[in-house]
Structure formats: C-alpha cells, structure tokens
C-alpha cells in the first residue's frame, strides 16, 4: 500500500472544515477479478486503503480495470478472490442488495429512471429502506436544495424535461439520498459540456466540504482527478497500482514513465490545476441584497470605487452581477442564479480562467460553502499567481540540475534518480 502523506497542504482536504466526516474507510485486500476464458485477470491483486472522508479518484486508460475495481466495492461485480471491507465490515457479510442500499452509486448521465419523477427517483433507496413518507419528502427537498435545484420547480419534473447537467445533479442527489457513508461514482461528469462539468465539479467539492463522505470516483480525465481528488490512484493494466498519492506528489514525483506520461507531469502549466482559487487574492466587491433600495446600493458602490454590484439573496448567495448603469427600478431585483457563472473556492486556476473568459467582467465571483458569496477574483491576480508558480517551478528545476552534478553531497528528497524525473521538459 502506498499511502503517501501529502506534503502539499493546499490539495489535501482537512475534512473538518465545514462539516464532520460521515464517510467510512474502505479497504481492498488482494482483490482479483478473473473472467472465465481470459488469460490475464481484469484486476490482479489490488490492495489499497481509502481513508474515511476522502475523495479518491481511480484514473487510467480504458480497459485497465478502474470501473471493474469500482464495481467490486458494491458487488455489482463479484471478486474472484480477495477481501473488501467498508468501515471494517466485509462487504460479503450482508446480501448484495442490502449492501448497495448503503452505498451511493452515481453513473454517467445520472441514469435516472425515465418513468419516474425527480422526487420518485431520489426517493428510491429511502423507500427500499422503509423510511416513512414524511421523512422521505423532507430528504428529497434537502437534497434538491443541496444540488442547487429548486425543489418547488423540479421535484415533479420528469428526467426528459431536464438538461444533462440537471439530470446529473439529480443522479448525485439520488446517490446521497439514504445518507450512505460511501459513494461510488463512475465518470459522473462525462456526459455534459465543459462549463456544466466545471460547475458540477465545484458543487461536488462544496457538498463534500459539508458532508465528508468517502467518495470513490472513476474518471479518465486526469485534470478532473487532480482537481477533485484528495488522492489519486493511477492504474496500469490489470488494475496494477502505478501510483497512489496526493495530486501534488503525483505531479512532482511520478513513480514511473507511465505515470508521468499519463499525468503530463513536468509541465508547469499542469501545476496550474493544482492551485486553488482560495490561494489567490480574493477581494471584496460591493454587494447589495434583493429588495434593497437601489439608490443606496449604487451609492455604496460608487464610494467604494466599484462600477458593478453583486446582488445577494437572503441566503447570501449571489444571484446577479450588474453594471451600475444597468440597475433599473427602485429596488434591487433577484437575478437568475442558474445562469450566473461563479467559481467555487476550491476550483482550480484552470477553471478560473475558463470562467473569466465567459464572463463580461474579466473577473469572477467566488463562492464558498452552500454557494455563499466570498468575493471577487480578477484576471490580474490569476496571472500574477501563475507567474509566481512558474518561477518556483523553474527554481526547483535548476536546483535539481545542480544537485545531480554533485551526487555525493545532495541527498535528494524527491523520487530516486531515474530518467523520468529530470530528463524531460
């Protein structure tokens, strides 16, 4: 087992921030899956520990066993040998159906049942567990709110009336419905456009902050893995562990050629995806509340030197971002939250640049827990930060080179001296 402690604090999630850990630890011990008639095993002796409350991403090229490994955790595929425990309990102890009711399962596209309403879809597992109707109703409302879908509007809609992103959100809500300690996701954000994907990723991070579940997520997108994962498991053929580390370590110290090729490490631009928005200067902008007299808000903005205004609703969530000259009427109006592009604090700089390019302000609103307004981040700040990282990386490179030319004196704390670390780039 390679459970390296991540040294880069910016990419580890201290699950205490915001919420407690409600996840459970998952352990795979020597898990193997061999299909009859095939010479090589699909998964061969996979052992790893997924710590409670963390997001672990399974990444690797297609066919290398990531989905198979995932599906063995909830026994959709039964292992040929080996043991899997969730929270210290062997998954084979209970019936497969019973197990799955306590493990969330979210797949690409949401896979909502088309003949059931959104509410009915979400209510499936609670109903299977025998919750009473009132409790279920309340839970459905809670969850729709959590995934940013207005319960009043959406609970009675049918899946075909929703957009791809909305369907995926309902899929996540459904996975969370029975409040399971573990959630399995299989390419959950693959079926939507990049902008929606970014929002969904941000929302997942936000949800995780308050819930602290153990999430195992399969993806083929290394950028997504780096953004979302506390740890990343890179799989080679036969689900062989190439490396299992925090994202920063993965980029800085790839274990072999396969990993470095896959991760694209050495590219300092990739490091961009590591930096979080929260590390850049977020400065406050003038805000106003829905229903507040417009004049006062405009005065406040003018005196602060701002030419735009962020309008918040009663829960401190930004609903609109208007230029002062656009403000009409006596009071501030609520905008459409769903069309307003925002950035989560935990979003990467990659996302920040994408967002700014589509906004008319060349800056972006940053939100924190539950979509609450935090501040504004602008283009200049991002560029400054990027430059700083680049300089850092270049310094690191040159110090490595000098270290190599003096083999006796310098015991490098980085990965052992093989070709992969230094020669490329």
């Amino acid at each position: 087992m390679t459970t390296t402690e991540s040294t880069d604090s910016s990419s580890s999630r201290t699950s205490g921030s915001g919420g407690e850990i409600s996840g459970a630890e998952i352990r795979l011990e020597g898990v193997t899956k061999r299909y009859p008639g095939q010479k090589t095993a699909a998964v061969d002796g996979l052992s790893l520990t997924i710590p409670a409350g963390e997001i672990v991403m399974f990444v690797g090229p297609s066919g290398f066993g990531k989905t198979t490994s995932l599906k063995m955790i909830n026994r959709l595929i039964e292992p040929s040998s080996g043991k899997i425990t969730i929270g210290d309990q062997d998954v084979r102890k209970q019936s497969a159906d019973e197990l799955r009711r306590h493990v969330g399962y979210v797949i690409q596209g949401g896979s909502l049942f088309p003949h059931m309403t959104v509410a009915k879809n979400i209510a499936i597992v609670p109903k299977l567990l025998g919750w009473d109707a009132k409790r279920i109703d309340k839970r459905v409302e809670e969850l729709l709110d959590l995934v940013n879908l207005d319960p009043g509007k959406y609970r009675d809609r049918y899946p075909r009336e929703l957009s791809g992103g909305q369907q995926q959100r309902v899929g996540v809500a459904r996975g969370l419905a029975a409040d399971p300690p573990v959630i399995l996701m299989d390419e959950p954000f693959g079926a939507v456009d990049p902008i929606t994907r970014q929002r969904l990723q941000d929302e997942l991070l936000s949800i995780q902050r308050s819930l602290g579940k153990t999430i195992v997520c399969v993806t083929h997108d290394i950028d997504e893995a780096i953004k979302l994962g506390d740890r990343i498991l890179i799989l080679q053929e036969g689900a062989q562990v190439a490396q299992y580390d925090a994202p920063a370590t993965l980029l800085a110290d790839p274990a072999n050629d396969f990993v470095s090729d896959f991760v694209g490490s050495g590219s300092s631009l990739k490091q961009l995806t590591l930096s979080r928005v929260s590390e850049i200067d977020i400065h406050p902008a003038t805000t106003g509340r829905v229903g507040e007299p417009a004049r006062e808000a405009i005065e406040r903005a003018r005196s602060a030197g701002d030419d735009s205004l962020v309008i918040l609703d009663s829960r401190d969530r930004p609903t609109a971002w208007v230029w002062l000259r656009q403000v009409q009427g006596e009071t501030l109006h609520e905008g459409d939250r769903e069309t307003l592009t925002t950035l989560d604090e935990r979003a990467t700089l990659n996302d920040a640049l994408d967002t700014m390019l589509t906004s008319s302000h060349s800056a972006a609103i940053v939100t924190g827990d539950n979509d609450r307004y935090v501040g504004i981040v602008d283009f200049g700040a991002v560029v400054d930060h990027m430059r700083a990282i680049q300089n850092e990386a270049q310094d690191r490179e040159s110090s490595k080179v000098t270290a190599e030319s003096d083999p006796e004196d310098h015991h490098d704390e980085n990965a052992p001296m093989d070709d992969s670390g230094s020669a490329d780039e």
Partner: protein
Amino acid sequence: MWQFIEDRRAQILINAFNHAYLVVLAIVIATVIAVLLAMVITRMPRLEPVANAISAVGLTIPSFALIGLLLPVTGLGATTALIAVTFYAALPILRNAVVGLAGVDANLLESARGLGMSELSSMFRIRLPLAWPVILAGIRVSMQMSMGIAAIAAYVLGPGLGVSIFVGLAQIGGKNAVNYALVGTLGIVIIALLLDLLLLALGRLTTSKGIRV
C-alpha cells in the same frame, strides 16, 4: 335494416356484450400468461429464439383448425371459444413483451441493482413499466385479431356477434339473411373500434408521463 335492428335490439346487445366480454377476458388472461412467460424468457435469453419460433408457428395455424383440434377436448361452447381466442391473443403479446423487456436500457437496470433493488423489484418497478408501451402495442394487435377469431368460434356455439353472422349464413337467400350477417359484421367492427379506443385511453393512463411519446 334499421327496423331489423330495432326489433331485435335486446338480442343484438346481448351478443355484442358477450363478444366484447369474451375478447376482453381472453386478452386479460393472455396478457398475464404472456408477460409471465416473457419475464422468464428475459432471465434465460437462450429461450428467446424458441419462444419466437413457437409464436411464429402458432400464428400460422389457422384459427379454424385450432378450434377443430380443441373440440374433442373441450366440446362445443364458450370454453372452446375462450381457449382458442386466448391462445392466439397470447402470441403477439408474448413477442412484444420479450422485445420490450429486452429493450430496456441496460444502464438503467444496472443503476437499479446498484441502488440496491432486488432482481424482482427491478423487474416490476423498472423493467415492466418501461416495457409497457411496447406490450400495449402488442395487446392492441391481439385485440383486433381476437375479434375475428371470436366470430369464427361462433360456429361451434361460442358466444358473441359471430352467432348473427352464422344465422345469416344459414338463412342465405332468406329475407333477413343479409341483415343478420351485416349486423354481426358491423357490430364487430364497432366494438373493435371502441375497445381499441379504450385501450388507447388505458395506455395513456397507465404509461408514465415521463415516457409517453
């Protein structure tokens, strides 16, 4: 002809009702049998070509022949009529049920299992409801077919408007022969239409709004 109908109104209505009742009963029984069989076949896909072959062969056998085969066993009367109609009604429904159940998106079924639904639960709450529109299409075809077969069965003393047709036939050349035959035939056409509309309405009611085309 109108006077003819007026005079025999009661009898005609009774025959019409019997005809409809026979067909509806046969369809209900046929649906239950066919859907159950289809569920079994869905679990064992190897059986599918066999089921389809049996279905094709079954529909090839002329209804009059089947009736002839049943006679020694079940004699003249309503029982034979019911069995014959049910047999033929089951075949299109079976074929459609198998296709419909097989056509449900595998991802959805996996999701259902992934959420913790048992196989049985998934069959009844996901697979069947989603296959229902296809099954219903089969039921509609079955129903139209059954109308004609029920009429033929009147020859062996089955109930319904076929009786009227055969009475007309027996009296061929006589004063009211054409009326009898016409009333029988048109009556069946009308009932077929009514029942079809009812099935359509039933379909709309029982098909979830989420999958209605």
